[in-house]
């Protein structure tokens, strides 16, 4: 069905494609540390060496009952349900920032358990529903 030329072009194409996919996978594997936008508390905990006082982002959930609001600063605990990091932050938090919800903090680690944030971002999940449905779900649980 295919001409000889088309066949050889196809073989060449498949070869190039396979090579470039392999290269891409390796590049992204080795760049993983740069591609991820934030680290979880467990990833920080498992790191053999951490750079203190260097800009880094950590993310997870704001632990319930951990949020303490003061005049213009907040402190809370970021958890991934395995490990926790205490975060302090001076400034205004995003509207969606609240206990039990996702958060990403940008700032510096003082040690593996203590983080001073310069920026707070709210991360939400992939679920979208009306408030009544959410209430009904909460009741059911």
């Amino acid at each position, binding site marked *: 069905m295919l001409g000889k030329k088309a066949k050889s072009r196809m073989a060449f194409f498949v070869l190039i494609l396979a090579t470039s996919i392999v290269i891409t996978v390796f590049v992204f594997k080795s760049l993983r540390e740069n591609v*991820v936008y934030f680290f979880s508390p467990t990833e920080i905990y498992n790191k053999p060496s951490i750079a203190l006082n260097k800009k880094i982002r950590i*993310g997870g959930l704001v632990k319930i009952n951990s949020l303490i609001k003061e005049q213009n600063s907040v402190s809370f605990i970021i958890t991934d349900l395995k490990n926790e990091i205490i975060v302090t932050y001076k400034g205004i938090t*995003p509207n969606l920032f609240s206990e039990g919800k996702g958060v990403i903090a940008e700032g510096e680690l003082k040690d593996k358990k203590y983080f001073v944030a310069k*920026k707070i971002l*709210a991360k*939400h999940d992939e679920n979208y529903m009306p*408030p009544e449905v959410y209430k009904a779900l909460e009741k059911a649980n």
Partner: protein
Amino acid sequence: MFKKFSPNKLLALNNKYIRVLIFLMILIFLLGLVFALFISPPDYIQGDSVRIMYVHVPSSFIALGSFAVIGLASILNLIFKIKIAPLIAKSIAPIGFIFSITSIVSGSLWGKPTWGIWWVWDARLTSMLVLVFFYLAYIISWKYIKDLEKANRVSSIIGILGLLNLPLIKYSVDWWSTLHQPSSINFTSSSTIHYTMLIPLAIMFLGMVIYSFIIFLMRYKTDLMIIKIRKRNN
């Protein structure tokens, strides 16, 4: 060469079809907007800003889908020498380009009230920006390479390279930690969007697909003429 797919026939059909399609599109957009702005409920965390989704998600789908077509057409062109493929791809490119920009701008407007920031360099947002540049490169290679054969080849290579970026965009939110949330709509599992919000999303998507198809028909017509003129002038 163009007799094979008789552009003249297509051009004659075009105008009748386009008028019907425009009428249909207006009806669907009216219905979609009523659903999106009035009937659908606010989100339980985001409130009314969730309505940006009805523009953002369809735009992103069309931006990705259009480039998938361009990539496949580029393969058909380079390997199987199917002459109509690059012409179709060339006419789709500006549509995908506009929708990729729309996706980024609407996403940015959505990010500020929800995440608290306009833009971050996470894997999803960055790979989407790369798509915008692939569109640009594709369009520019057709526009500024004088020799048509060469333009055809260069643009197809760009189309195939850009194809590799598509899985990166789609799965970036699963492979790496990102600020952008994971996909709500997947090939394999049911959607995590409540049906009251899924209805306006589907209607708006349909409207934008019809819009894209109309622009494609118009663009295709113009592109056929441009190519004819460029061939004559060479």
